[in-house]
């Protein structure tokens, strides 16, 4: 069974601080996605990383895919209260016939002013 471990599980910071969320696995994934979910809504895709070592930037968010395609990180610079939410990583196995995602349990981020 492929698992994605996310850390930390909870993160509470002040506006303006930087933070990093980690997503780790012992398995290789063909690609990995990061989602953000707000209460009462479904997850919304932020980014997909496909190539080992890939780095993608989305405004203040920086996503990195590990060289071995087993891990990923999300770094937020100068966090804002609007960044509050549940951040989920999800992997796509190279062995899956379909494209059902394997999700980590998520990191709940709270940014206070």
């Amino acid at each position, binding site marked *: 069974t492929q698992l994605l471990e996310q850390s930390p599980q909870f993160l509470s910071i002040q506006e303006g601080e930087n933070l990093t969320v980690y997503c780790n696995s012992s398995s290789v994934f*063909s*690609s990995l*996605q990061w989602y953000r979910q707000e209460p*009462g*809504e*479904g*997850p*919304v*895709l932020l980014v*997909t990383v*496909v190539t080992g070592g890939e780095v993608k930037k989305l405004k203040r968010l920086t996503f990195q895919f590990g060289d071995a395609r087993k891990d990923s990180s999300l770094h937020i610079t100068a966090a804002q209260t609007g960044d509050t939410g549940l951040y*989920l990583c*999800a992997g*796509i196995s190279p062995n*899956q*016939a*379909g*494209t*059902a*995602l*394997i*999700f*980590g*349990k*998520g990191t709940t981020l709270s940014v206070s002013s």
Partner: protein
Amino acid sequence: GAGVSQSPSNKVTEKGKDVELRCDPISGHTALYWYRQSLGQGLEFLIYFQGNSAPDKSGLPSDRFSAERTGGSVSTLTIQRTQQEDSAVYLCASSLARGPTDTQYFGPGTRLTVL
């Protein structure tokens, strides 16, 4: 255009009753997924429909769970003889399924509470 919609948004039922959850995917999306999100467990894959192919049911937790997709569009997830451990948010997603990195668009979910 309209996103993925799910109904009802909330469902409270008694243990042992059957429930039906509905998902309307984005028009033109050939792939449809059901996931379950519960506290402490994260998002778990349940079932996947792709076009006219046989669905991938590998994530269904027991034979009390079933799903169908009529006419390649609307899908219904049925849970028979509900148990308290079935309480969770049930999420539906759809995609164009052009490739493994295709974006899945999620609905807002149905929160199921089994008393």
